[in-house]
């Protein structure tokens, strides 16, 4: 007997009923009586002293009720607050601004428009200071020191390294072939279609602060607010309602949230803050901005021997990346990828510049996008140098299935994998050999066609408490289930979906584990007053951690249910087995009890000495991370006259272990691939010498539309995780991690016969045209 909506079924999503009717509850949909609006004055300068802030005119604007400045916050010790990496950031500056679009003052008014009028009327006089936007220049001895409060001598934030430096040096020297390449991964911005915002309301009678907030981690935010504001934690309620996309951009604590809370406390009225898109792009957390130098050493017949990577990490004016505290460069040291390097060494130096802070807000699994891009690019460059087919080079080197669990030279224990299987499947789907033949023929005619492979290994599910924490909070996650007398259930989790479909997928795990219909299970997340404590949803951790908690909690219920069933059937619990989603007397299939019957008994007919009720909570501490993987193959055709890159076909074979809902997993892959295409071909955030962002709106920052996005083709292999209760690994970010290298490898492959070995992303038509022009090909 299969349950309705169990694991592996493409159940339609419960969330959709409200979304298609336009009845989602997003933060900006909230309207409370007497609600005020907050808008923010922002700095035009990237680095400047504040001479004065004159609010006289602003206070006279009709509708304006209050203006908040840095000195107001300083009095309450709130001008600075900690970042998630134990650095500190300004809520409002007292002395100087450190990046363009930085928050300088806040205006509170009776309407959104009046607040904007107020912002325009605030007069700020600045004294510009020298600007540093280039991290290399920031490290030069004569560079202005940006954070004397942290480091008086240099703009270096930290140095981090892992691996065997000397061993790797020796192995590279002993290699027959060494390929060295500089890879710059520019700053990008995730720009989910809903921007950030909140509504803060303080009830002076009960002393309770309620904040509806676009956040991916409501509990962590509540604890941080309690520590920073001094308000007792039980008097703070964070509600994360429907969120219009997160991808990491809704993890940090932005000054706007704090300002809305301050305004709510001071005015006694609810205060709403919703940022504009240009504010979102110009001030909120970015991703990437890694200057990488990678070296790969191999034997002349293509056996990989050693990998050395050195990176300069541009973090903006403060380290506000939400990495696990022991890993300032995130999980970048997964850079050995799908290959068994015996020797590897990675070092990363974080640097301060006059730009907005951040680093990992773009579906990247804590810097895994950077790592996968690096390894899959240099493996391809090596293949070219050796004159080997890139598929052959990979197949020759993959960590074989029998080597798992596999301990990498940089310290990770990969749980399971079948890299060759995924690549072979992708090659068959796309007819790889046929494509190479076609390419050969096209090349003779001078046509530019390229094929690119990316065989990536992901690392998600942060994380085991012995190694992982954010600001000291261990990275467990939780599930609490309660089954009602009539056999229906409610389950709450410590994570928070922003479109991933948890209301459906968690329900499916529970349906399978409890033998109930998914229709009979309500799933809730996001209200810190009711949900068990969790670290939230980002870095693809929900299925590996909270999904595991769901299974564990369900099995606790089954343990009690077994005793109830035994009582009802008048047998010993040892005579029962969980079969076909019910408790059956071994050998007597007719004698069984369903969870529905057991639930009723839990309230009406439980044995003496047993507590009534049927519920359980589990806080899951994962024993290890999980390692989804995949192989992507991209085919491009390049227009010689315009340099435009057209993706003709893109095949993605993903392995995320056990699949809960195939329809939802496929949707995650489609979305992730599109967010891999974006930085590869379209998106880049640049600054000029003055620290002015070049663009800063959707006019110039180009998200892929349906026209640029190809018809993605997906497939799967299934290699369960041996340590996860249901064998699932998580998949939300795999495609963003794996896709860019496949696309870039394809473009470089199309131009390799001209001597091109690498092109920095985004690969715009202009860059390609210039190369073609220089090579005399246009």
């Amino acid at each position, binding site marked *: 007997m299969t349950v309705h909506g169990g694991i592996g079924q493409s159940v339609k999503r419960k969330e959709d009923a409200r979304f298609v009717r336009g009845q989602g509850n997003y933060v900006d949909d909230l309207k409370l009586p007497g609600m005020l609006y907050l808008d923010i004055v*922002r*700095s*035009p*300068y*990237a680095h400047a002293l504040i001479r004065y802030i004159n609010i006289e005119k602003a206070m006279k604007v009709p509708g304006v009720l209050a203006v908040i400045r840095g000195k107001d916050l300083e009095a309450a010790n709130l001008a600075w607050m900690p970042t998630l990496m134990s650095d500190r950031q300004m809520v409002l500056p007292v002395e100087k601004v450190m990046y*363009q*679009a930085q928050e300088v003052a806040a205006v509170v008014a009776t309407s959104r428009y009046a607040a904007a009028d107020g912002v*325009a009327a605030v007069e700020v006089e*600045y004294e*510009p200071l020298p600007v540093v936007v280039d991290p290399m220049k920031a490290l030069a001895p004569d560079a202005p020191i940006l954070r004397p409060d942290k480091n008086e001598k240099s703009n270096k934030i930290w140095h981090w390294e892992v691996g065997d430096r000397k061993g790797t040096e020796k192995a590279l020297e002993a290699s027959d072939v060494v390929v060295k390449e500089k890879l710059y991964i520019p700053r990008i911005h995730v720009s989910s279609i809903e921007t950030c915002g909140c509504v803060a309301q303080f009830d002076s009678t009960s002393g309770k602060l309620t904040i509806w907030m676009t956040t991916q981690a409501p509990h962590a935010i509540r604890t941080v607010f309690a520590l920073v504001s001094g308000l007792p934690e039980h008097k703070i309620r964070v509600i994360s309602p429907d969120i219009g996309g997160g991808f990491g951009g809704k993890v940090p604590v932005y000054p706007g949230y704090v300002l809305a809370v301050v305004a709510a406390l001071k005015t006694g009225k609810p205060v709403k803050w919703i940022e504009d898109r*240009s504010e979102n792009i*110009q001030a909120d957390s970015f991703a990437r901005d890694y200057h990488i130098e990678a070296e790969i050493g191999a034997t002349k017949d293509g056996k990989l021997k050693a990998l050395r990577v050195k990176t300069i990490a541009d973090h903006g004016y403060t380290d506000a990346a939400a990495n696990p505290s022991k890993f300032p460069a995130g999980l970048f040291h997964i850079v050995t990828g799908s290959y068994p390097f015996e020797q590897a060494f990675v070092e990363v130096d974080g640097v301060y510049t006059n730009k907005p802070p951040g680093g990992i807000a773009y579906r990247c699994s804590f810097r895994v996008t950077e790592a996968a891009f690096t390894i899959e690019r240099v493996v391809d460059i090596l293949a070219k140098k050796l004159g080997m087919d890139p598929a052959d080079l990979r197949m020759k080197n993959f960590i074989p299935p029998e080597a798992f669990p596999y301990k990498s030279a940089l310290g990770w224990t990969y749980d399971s994998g079948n890299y060759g299987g995924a690549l072979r499947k992708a090659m068959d789907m796309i007819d790889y050999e046929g494509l190479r033949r076609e390419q050969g023929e096209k090349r003779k005619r001078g046509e530019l066609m390229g094929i690119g492979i990316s065989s990536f290994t992901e690392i998600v599910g942060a994380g085991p408490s012995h190694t992982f924490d954010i600001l000291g909070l261990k990275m467990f996650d939780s599930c609490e289930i309660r089954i009602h007398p009539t056999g229906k259930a409610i389950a709450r989790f410590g994570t928070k979906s922003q479109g991933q479909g948890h209301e459906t997928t968690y329900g499916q795990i529970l349906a399978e584990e409890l033998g109930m219909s998914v229709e009979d299970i309500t799933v809730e997340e996001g209200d810190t007053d009711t949900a068990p404590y969790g670290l939230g949803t980002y870095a693809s951790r929900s299925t590996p951690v909270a999904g595991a908690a769901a299974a564990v909690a369900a099995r606790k219920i089954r343990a009690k249910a077994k005793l109830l069933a035994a009582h009802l059937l008048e047998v010993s619990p040892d005579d029962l087995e969980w079969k076909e989603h019910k408790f059956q007397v071994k050998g007597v299939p007719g004698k069984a009890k369903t969870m529905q019957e057991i639930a009723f008994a839990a309230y009406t007919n439980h044995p003496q000495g047993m507590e009534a009720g049927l519920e359980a909570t589990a806080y899951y501490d994962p024993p290890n991370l999980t390692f989804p993987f995949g192989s992507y193959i991209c085919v491009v055709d390049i227009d010689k006259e315009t340099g435009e890159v057209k993706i003709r076909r893109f095949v993605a074979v993903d392995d995320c272990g056990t699949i809960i809902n195939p329809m939802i997993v496929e949707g995650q892959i489609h979305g992730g691939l599109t967010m891999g295409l974006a930085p590869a071909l379209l998106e880049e955030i640049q600054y*000029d010498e*003055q*620290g*002015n*962002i*070049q*663009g*800063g*709106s959707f*006019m*110039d920052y180009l998200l892929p539309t349906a026209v640029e996005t190809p018809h993605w083709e997906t497939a799967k292999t299934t290699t369960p995780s041996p340590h996860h209760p249901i064998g699932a690994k998580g998949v939300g970010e795999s495609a963003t991690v794996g896709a860019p290298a496949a696309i870039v490898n394809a473009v470089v492959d199309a131009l390799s016969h001209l001597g091109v070995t690498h092109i920095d992303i985004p690969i715009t038509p202009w860059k390609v045209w210039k190369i073609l022009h220089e090579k005399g090909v246009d």
Partner: protein
Amino acid sequence: MRYEGTFTVRTPQERAWAFFLDPKQLSTCIDDPHTIEVIDQDRFKGTVKAGVGFIRGTFTWNATIKDRSPPHAEIAMHGSGMGSAFDIVSSLDLTEANGLTTVRWTADVQMSGTVASMGARLLQGTIDKKTNRFFENARKLLESG
């Protein structure tokens, strides 16, 4: 960004000098609607309605003649408004030959904020256009009557 150029006009050097060092006369060469107020012989302020593309609004500005040693002058100007700011430090050097006055000018322009960020793509073109118009207008005024 540093700009520089040469402007030649058929008018005596003295007249050109007086023209370029008199903000009230200079400002008549600016097409954008503006106001100007004299604080003293070296300091001026006012407003100007300008922008880049659709990013337009009112800026307040102030200017100071920092060096007045004929035939060389230096003027510093600062303006702000619309979440943007600009600073321009310019220099002028005049010479005369055969009834023609040559003005060698430089301008160090720093733009910050919305005009420089969201208007980045259009900024260069706008600056070029305005500079050309300015000198065209100056030439018309100086060569007539």
